[in-house]
């Protein structure tokens, strides 16, 4: 029985990847869990320079969700390569760098520096809702998306994985643009733009104002978008959004995702990977499947006939 998956030229020992911004640089979890049990780790978003991030409060809870405006506080790509990467050396897990930039040139430059020994792939963050430049300004515009992805593609030999935004009308447009621009896989999705109001103070609950919504609340939207993206392109899709159990992960895999990322659930329970891995193995056993790949894309979507009633 095998949980291994192939993705963008990488072989992951299992389809579970820690999502950017929810797992620090990996090293924070040393000793709490065994990093070698993960299929991969995506770093916190990295710019060329260190960043301070947003004022506090930066995170607030909403029903079954987390709204955040961290503002990409981080050490910068050089410090990551110099200080953090060596500490990840001993672990048998794919290391993926989440690449950020205020300009196309910055994305490319970060990508160039990130191509260091020990880095297995680059995820291009064109979908962060919590920055005033870059982020959504790129991921919400097909032309800019193409430009950024193509520039990073040119700057590196590493696999390139754009991370798509859910704050668009049609995710398949962006999926196809990324494929054309040379992407090796897609990450789908980043957070949904949200606003929570402190009614006593009549101000947003987050210092930044708006924020990105993650967690179980968004899972139905995320599964839908990952499913749409997976049907639109031939490159593999990594599903993200509200995964906290094996069942949740299977929703994405069955809908067509080759792998999944786990975000907010890291905060809720660092033991989430062991639980999900055990659950996936149990599922394969119960369903008599040899490999997790047999499950990927196995969703039987009803055709118009089956949905009954003329009304819909």
């Amino acid at each position, binding site marked *: 029985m095998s949980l291994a998956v192939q993705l963008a030229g990488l072989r992951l020992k299992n389809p579970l990847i820690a999502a950017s*911004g929810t797992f*620090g640089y990996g090293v*924070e979890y040393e000793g709490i*869990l065994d990093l070698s049990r993960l299929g991969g780790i995506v770093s916190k978003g990295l710019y060329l320079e260190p960043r301070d991030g947003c004022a506090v409060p930066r995170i607030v809870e909403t029903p079954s969700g987390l709204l955040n405006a*961290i503002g990409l506080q981080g050490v910068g790509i050089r410090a990551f390569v110099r200080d953090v990467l060596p500490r990840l050396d001993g672990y048998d897990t794919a290391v993926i760098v989440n690449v950020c930039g205020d300009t196309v040139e910055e994305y490319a430059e970060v990508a160039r520096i990130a191509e260091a020994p020990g880095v297995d792939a680059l995820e291009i963050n064109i979908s962060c809702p919590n920055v005033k430049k870059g982020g959504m300004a790129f991921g919400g515009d097909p032309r800019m998306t193409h430009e950024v992805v193509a520039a990073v593609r040119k700057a590196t030999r590493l696999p390139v994985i754009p991370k798509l935004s859910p704050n668009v009308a049609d995710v398949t447009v962006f999926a196809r643009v990324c494929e054309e621009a040379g992407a090796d896989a897609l990450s789908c999705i980043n957070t949904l733009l949200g606003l929570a109001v402190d009614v006593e103070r009549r101000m947003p609950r987050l210092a930044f104002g708006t924020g990105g919504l993650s967690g179980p609340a968004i899972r139905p939207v995320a599964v839908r978008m990952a499913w749409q993206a997976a049907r639109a392109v031939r490159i593999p899709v990594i599903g993200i959004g509200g995964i906290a159990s094996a069942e949740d992960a299977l929703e994405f895999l069955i809908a067509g995702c080759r792998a999944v990322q786990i975000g907010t659930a890291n905060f*809720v329970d660092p033991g989430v990977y062991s639980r999900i891995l055990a659950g996936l193995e149990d599922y394969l056993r119960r369903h008599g499947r040899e490999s997790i790949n047999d499950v990927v894309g196995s969703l039987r979507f009803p055709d118009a006939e089956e949905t009954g009633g003329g009304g819909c």
Partner: protein
Amino acid sequence: MVATTSPRPPASRDVPLVARRPLQGPYLLLTFRHPEVAGRTRAGQFVMIKANTAADPLLRRPFSIMSVHPAEDTFTLFLKVVGSGTRALADLRSGETAGCLGPLGRPFPMPPEDHEALLVAGGYGIAPFVLFGDELRRAGRRARAFYGGRTSGDLQGHDPFTALGLPLACCTDDGSFGHHGRVTDAVEAYLDTRPGAVTLYACGPDAMLHAAARLAERRNVPAQVSLDPWMGCGVGTCLGCVVRIQRADEPRGKYRCACTEGPVFDARDVVWAGEGSSRARREAAAVLR
């Protein structure tokens, strides 16, 4: 005084509730079995804990570890029910489990040998001082405690504390119990008795911490404050709990995680909203001089 951090990583476990003792009002004591927390906690550290696997409320919540019982592998929290996360914990029955990660964070540093430790607590801020009082006693340090609340009902948790045999001064804003007035006023009155060298330790609501920090600055005594920001993960990955901290030689200070570099910080380094840090003020004054 050098920051001492827990030498070994925290452990994430499903921990069974082994005892539950309601106190008056919204307060109660909860005891869980967790060998690592019971075995290696230092006073001032905390756990992240959540009662069930429902998605609402979503995240674990931070609580100071009030006491540990290594022989039974258990630890105790002093809980005030304020919202849905604390409500769910309070509703646990014996034997039911909670997801729990700990021990976390930077503990209270020991005072210099010749200092008396003044423990200044507001509301549930008393919790970490129970363990700290114990550590101080074992280390043979002098200590006394000041415990304030709005009204008598907020001083529910002090009996396990008096049991330690430390001098304890209780204060209420409405005078319904102990001294009438703010807890920092009681501390100041004590300082007026010229007790010799002291180190202040404060844990409680923001306004009280700020008042304690100002008092320490005014009287030029070292102080450690345990901050109380919203926390998402407890291990430095969500970056939700940051506070602006300005250490020596830092012109502006940096956002630092209260969960890993705190919750206990040197009061001089804390940049209070709209005011800056006392370190910055002192340095600015030094430049002027």
